[in-house]
């Protein structure tokens, strides 16, 4: 029963946002906002783009500081299986349980990450897929955790849940920056975290975090709730609906 909790969380989050966002901007070197903090998955949902924009103080010496944006979805656990050839057939022979993998991950930056910050800082801030820490339990004689980790990245990138490259943050002015966050149709629901780091001369000079909620609304949400909360009734309804539709078609064709 994850859904009711998510609903409440979205409410609390949006209410809190109204107070939190403006007061901070005045004293910190970084001010950002998202075009929307709630992505609503409606029946016609086919993915969307969010605009993240803000202003940043230039670094010392007037050089514009770099902006790195990290969007990460709720952490989850999953199992990955590996096929191997056994007597000519390709069958699942090994598996690994992975904990702590975000359901969604994207990074955007003004410049390539290696030019923005030293590896130690990137590691500390957890920027980039290759620096994510997962708990991987391998049960496989033919592949190690490194192989499973790489497989997770490939599979999630193929599903569009992980970004396959670093997106760009553009600068329309000396202090202003903006980037578009693409949200694919396959996006999982949950509370997301959008972190914005301001880095100058390889040093972190400011960070801000803003939440993002992805939730189902409308008919789709109602059907989903029904299917999970009253599964028996939903099953019955599905059968009756299908039978009626089939019968209706037969009746129409007899007339025609």
């Amino acid at each position, binding site marked *: 029963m994850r859904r009711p909790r998510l609903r409440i969380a979205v409410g609390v989050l949006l209410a809190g946002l109204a107070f939190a966002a403006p007061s901070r901007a005045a004293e910190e070197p970084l001010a950002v906002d998202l075009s929307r903090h709630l992505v609503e998955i409606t029946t016609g949902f*086919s993915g969307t783009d969010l605009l993240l924009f803000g202003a940043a103080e230039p670094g010392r010496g007037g050089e514009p500081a770099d902006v790195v944006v990290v969007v990460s979805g709720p952490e989850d656990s999953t199992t990955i299986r590996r*096929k191997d050839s056994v007597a000519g057939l390709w069958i699942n022979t090994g598996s690994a349980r992975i904990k702590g993998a975000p359901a969604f991950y994207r990074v955007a930056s003004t410049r390539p990450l290696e030019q923005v910050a030293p590896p130690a800082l990137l590691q500390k801030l957890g920027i980039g897929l290759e620096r994510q820490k997962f708990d991987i339990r391998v049960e496989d004689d033919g592949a190690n955790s490194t192989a499973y980790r790489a497989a997770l990245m490939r599979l999630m990138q193929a599903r569009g849940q992980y970004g396959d490259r670093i997106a760009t943050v553009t600068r329309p002015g000396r202090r202003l920056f903006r980037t578009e966050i693409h949200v694919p149709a396959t996006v999982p*629901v949950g509370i997301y975290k959008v972190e914005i780091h301001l880095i100058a001369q390889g040093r972190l000079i400011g960070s801000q975090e803003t939440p993002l909620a992805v939730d189902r609304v409308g008919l789709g*949400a109602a059907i989903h709730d029904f299917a999970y909360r009253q599964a028996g009734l939903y099953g019955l309804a599905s059968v009756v*609906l299908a039978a009626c539709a089939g019968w209706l*078609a037969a009746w129409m064709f007899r007339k025609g």
Partner: protein
Amino acid sequence: MQIYLPIAEMSVNVFVILAVGGGIGFLSGLFGAGGGFLLTPLLIFLGVPPAVAVGTGTNQIVASSVSGALAQWRRGNVDLRMGLILILGGLVGSGLGVMLFHWLRRLGHIDLVISGSYVVLLGGIGGLMVTESVRALLRRRAGGGAEPMARRHARGWIDRLPLKVRFRRSQLYISALLPALVGIAVGMISAIMGVGGGFVLVPAMIYLLGMPTAVVMGTSLFQIVFVTANATFLHATINHTVDVVLALVLVLGGAIGAQFGVRVGARLKGEHLRALLGLLVLAVAVKLLVDLLLPPAEPFSLAAAVGAIR
């Protein structure tokens, strides 16, 4: 036009799903079989999670079989007594099948078992149907009279089974145990493979029970309606894998397709129908076998989507 599927949790093009439903419906009307064994793989190919493809597939077959079954019923092509015994067996079988499914999934080899049973069952039955109908066509061309297909088999042990019942519509006097066992087997196959089971049921009725081809189509559709209804209900309550939005779009296309299928099927000869269905069944079996034998492009797979509700 894109539409979001609330249970599959993905966005699809409505017209692609309509076309898939229409094609499957056409086949099921044409053959009295041929829904699920193509629908489930097609949905998986479109990116629908396999579990949802199986659950929703059974729901779609309910609808396409209802319209087909009703069309056959009006023609008087349903053996009611035979159908009821098959259904009884089918309900028991689909219950057993769901239990077996859970056990296999825990062992982690459900994918292999599904693919393997598709290859063995579809390959065997498809091959049998093609050779039988080709032989029948050759005999006819050679000038020999159309030999009654099934009744020529020696049926010693079958005739000795107890609980004999007269099936007037099928012109048979056989043990009720036989259709009950066929029903159980088809019910199990239906639950495990996410199919209606017509591709097993139809040959079993023709070759094993010895039913006349005219009542086979109607009676099999009649049985499939109830067995897939039971499977849909079980999938929805136990696995939450029935996507009613996806099913209804498939049904819309499928219901229309089935009507055309029944009409075209009425114009084709039995041997031609069997040969066509046999070829189709064989093609799917070969495709699945090749997938099992060739090294996969990606040996790793996600057992469950990250962030999906399980």
